[in-house]
C-alpha cells in the first residue's frame, strides 16, 4: 500500500527532452492510468518510478519518502512488462518465486550445487513454495507450475507475470502496456480481471497504455500525456465530458470526436459555417477556434427540420458501419457546411438516410466543446440570450416514421409527435 508522488520530474535523453515538469500524486490504493500516443513519455515515466531509468531532475516519493537513491528492488514496487519479461529458462514456479528467493536466500544459498549444503535453504524454499502456490491459485495457474514460458499461451504468460509481481506484496504495481500483446478478445477479458484484481488487492496500480478504452474502463483516474507533459488528470468521465485540451478530446472516445472549424463573430458569439451559434466565447472577434461534437450528441432528422435550441447542419450519408446495437454513420456535410461528421445512431436509420436530398444533423450548441487555436478548452463559453430560439413548436411537425430527437425518455415514443425515439446520450 503506498502513495506515489512525482515532484517536477523531467527527463531528457542526450539533450532531447522527453518529460518536463511532471507532477503527479497517486493516492494509496488508487488505479491511475497514464494514457497517450506512443512516444509521449508515459513508459519513460513509469520506468522512472520503477527506478529503471534515472530522472534528469525532480523527485519520486513513495509514502512520502524520496526513493530516488534506491535501487529498483528496494523501492518495493513490482512491474509487469509489455513483453512480460518472463525468464525463458525457468519454470513457472521459479519465475514467480524468484523475487522471494532473491530477497530471502543469500548468494551461497542460490549458487548451483553449493546451495545443496544449506539446511536453511530447504526451510525457506518450503515457505516460498507455499506462497507461490497461494498466488498461482488466485490466478488459476496452479496447474502450470512445472511448465516453461514457451509452453504457455499469451494469457497464461500474462498471469505468470502478474503472479511474479503479486508474490512480493509490493507497495505499488507498475504496469507497462501489459495487455497489448494479447488478442482482442483476451484483452477485454483481462481488462476485467485486472480491475477485479485491483479491487481485491487494494494496492496502488499505475498503469500505462496507449489504448483509451483500457484507460476509461479500468481506472479511478486517468492522466493523459502528450509530448512529455500531462495534459489532463481526472476521472475517466471528466476527460470525456470536459476535455481540457483538443488532444484529450481527440484521444478519448471512439469513434473520435467530430471537429469543425469555427470563429468568433463580430457580435462575440461562436460562428460555424457562417451561422451564429447561441453561445459566446470571450475572445476577440475573428479569432479562430475548433468546435468539438461527440458523435452521440448529434441527432438526425429529415431535411428541413428545425428544433428549438438546436443547431442544424445539412449533410448526406456517405457510408454506414453496422456495429450491431448501433450504426456508425459517416456523413458528408453539404453547403454551406463542409467536412465529414461521424455520428452514432441506435436502431433503424434507413427512412432518414435513404432520402436522396440529404438529411439534417442537429445538436445542442451547449453540448459542443470549444477549443482555442492552441487547443485549450474555452471554459468561459456562455449561452447567448434566448433570442435565437425559433418560435415554432418543435413537435408541431409530425415526424411520422422518422426519429424524434427530443423524446422524453430513451426508447419511448415521443408524446407530442408520436415519433419513435432516437438514441439519447
Amino acid at each position, binding site marked *: 500500500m503506498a502513495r506515489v508522488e512525482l515532484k517536477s520530474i523531467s527527463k531528457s535523453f542526450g539533450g532531447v527532452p522527453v518529460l518536463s515538469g511532471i507532477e503527479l500524486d497517486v493516492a494509496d490504493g488508487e488505479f491511475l492510468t497514464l494514457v497517450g500516443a506512443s512516444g509521449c513519455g508515459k513508459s519513460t515515466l513509469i520506468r522512472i518510478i*520503477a*527506478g*529503471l531509468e534515472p530522472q534528469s531532475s525532480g523527485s519520486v516519493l513513495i509514502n512520502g519518502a524520496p526513493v530516488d537513491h534506491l*535501487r*529498483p*528492488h528496494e523501492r518495493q*514496487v*513490482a*512491474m509487469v*512488462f509489455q*513483453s512480460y*519479461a*518472463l*525468464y*525463458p*529458462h*525457468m519454470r513457472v514456479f521459479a519465475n514467480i518465486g*524468484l*523475487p522471494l528467493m*532473491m*530477497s530471502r536466500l543469500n*548468494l551461497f544459498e*542460490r*549458487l*548451483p550445487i553449493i546451495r545443496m549444503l544449506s539446511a536453511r535453504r530447504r526451510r525457506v524454499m518450503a515457505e516460498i513454495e507455499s506462497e507461490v502456490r497461494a498466488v498461482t491459485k488466485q490466478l488459476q495457474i496452479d496447474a502450470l507450475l512445472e511448465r*516453461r514460458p*514457451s509452453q504457455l499461451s499469451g494469457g497464461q504468460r500474462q498471469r505468470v507475470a502478474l503472479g*511474479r509481481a503479486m508474490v512480493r506484496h509490493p507497495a505499488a504495481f507498475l504496469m507497462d502496456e501489459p495487455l497489448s500483446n494479447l488478442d482482442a478478445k483476451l484483452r477485454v477479458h483481462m481488462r476485467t480481471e485486472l480491475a477485479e484484481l485491483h479491487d481485491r488487492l487494494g494496492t496502488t496500480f499505475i498503469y500505462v497504455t496507449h489504448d483509451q478504452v483500457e484507460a476509461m474502463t479500468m481506472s479511478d483516474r486517468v492522466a493523459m500525456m502528450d509530448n512529455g507533459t500531462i495534459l489532463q488528470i481526472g476521472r475517466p468521465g471528466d476527460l470525456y465530458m470536459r476535455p481540457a485540451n483538443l488532444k484529450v478530446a481527440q484521444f478519448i472516445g471512439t469513434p473520435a470526436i467530430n471537429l469543425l472549424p469555427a470563429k468568433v463573430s463580430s457580435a462575440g458569439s461562436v460562428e460555424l459555417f457562417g451561422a451564429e451559434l447561441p453561445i459566446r466565447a470571450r475572445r476577440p472577434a475573428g479569432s479562430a477556434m475548433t468546435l468539438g461534437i461527440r458523435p452521440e450528441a448529434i441527432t438526425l432528422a429529415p431535411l428541413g427540420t428545425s428544433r428549438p435550441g438546436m443547431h442544424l447542419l445539412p449533410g448526406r450519408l456517405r457510408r454506414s458501419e453496422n456495429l450491431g446495437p448501433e450504426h456508425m454513420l459517416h456523413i458528408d456535410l453539404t453547403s454551406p457546411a463542409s467536412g465529414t461528421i461521424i455520428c452514432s445512431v441506435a436502431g433503424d436509420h434507413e427512412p432518414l438516410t435513404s432520402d436522396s436530398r440529404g438529411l439534417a444533423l442537429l445538436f445542442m450548441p451547449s453540448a459542443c466543446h470549444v477549443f482555442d487555436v492552441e487547443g485549450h478548452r474555452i471554459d468561459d463559453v456562455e449561452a447567448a440570450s434566448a433570442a435565437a430560439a425559433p418560435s415554432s413548436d418543435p413537435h408541431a411537425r409530425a415526424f411520422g416514421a422518422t426519429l424524434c430527437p427530443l423524446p422524453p425518455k430513451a426508447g419511448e415514443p415521443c408524446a407530442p409527435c408520436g415519433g419513435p425515439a432516437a438514441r439519447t446520450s
Partner: protein
Amino acid sequence: MMASAVAIAAPVPVVRRDRQRLIEKLAGCGFAFPAFLLLLLTNLVPLAVLLYLSFTNYELGALDTRFLGLDNFRKAVTDPVLRRSLANTFVYVAIVLPGAVGLGLLIAVLLHRRKRTRTFYEVVYFLPVTSTLIAMATVWQFILHPNLGPVNGMLRAMGFGEIAFLSEPAYVLPTLAAIGIWQLVGFNMVLFLAGLSAIPRDLYEAAEIDGCRSGIDRFLTITWPLLGPTTMFVIITTSITAFKVFDTVAVMTRGGPMGSSEVLLYAIYLEGYQYFHMGYAAALTLIFLAFVLLFSILQTFVLERRVHY
C-alpha cells in the same frame, strides 16, 4: 481441337502423370548434380582412398603395396607413440577448452555494455584470429626465446630465473596451449557477444526489480543460462579446433622436447610425410576423424536437446 478440350476436362491420364513425375525427378537430380560432384571429388573419394590406404602398407613412392586388413589399427592400439600423442592432445584440449571459452565469455561480458570502446577492443581481441598462425608462431618463438625473448627479459628484470618455455617438457604443452587460447579467444568472444545481444534487455530489468542486486546475480540468473546454446556451440567448435592443433607444434617444437609436445596431428604428419608410412598414417587419420565425429555427434544429439528451452 476437340481432343485437347476433352483432355483438359478429363482427369490427367496415369501415363502422363508418371512422365511428369519422372521429369521433375530428373530436373531435381540435375540441380543437385554439380554439388554432389563437388562433394564426391573433394570429400567422399578422398575418404574412400583414405579408408583403402588404411588397410594397406602403402608407402610414398613404393612400387608394390600389400593389403594388411586391420593390421594398421592393431598396431595403432599398442603404439606407444600414438598413445603419447593422444594423451598430449587431450592435455592440450583440457587447457585450451576452459581457457578459451572462459576468457572469451569474460571479455564478451565486459565488452557488451561498452559503447565507444567496444569496437576497439573487439578488433584487438579478434586480430589473432585473422592472422596466420604459422607466422605468429614464429613471433611467439621469438617472444618466448630463453635469451632474446622479452618474456624472459621481464622475468629476469623482476628477479626470477629464466624459463625455457619451449624446451622444458613440463612447460611446453601449457605454453602451446596458452598460444592456442590467445588465438581462439577473439573468435569465441565474437560468438558470445552475438549471444549476449540476443538476450532481451527486459529480462535484466525484470531481474533488477526482482532483486538481482549485483553483477554476479545478474550473470547467474540471466546471462549464463540464456547463453547456454551459444556456450554449447563455442565449446564444440573450440574443442574440435584444439583437437586439430598442428601449426604451432610444427613450427615451434617439432613435437619436442622428447615427444612431450607431440600431438595427434603431428604424429600423423610424421608417419606420413617423414617416415612415408602412408598406410599407417591413413589409419591414424581415421582414428582422428572418429574423435572429431564424436564431438560433432555430441553437439547434434545430446547438447542441442539439453540447452534449448
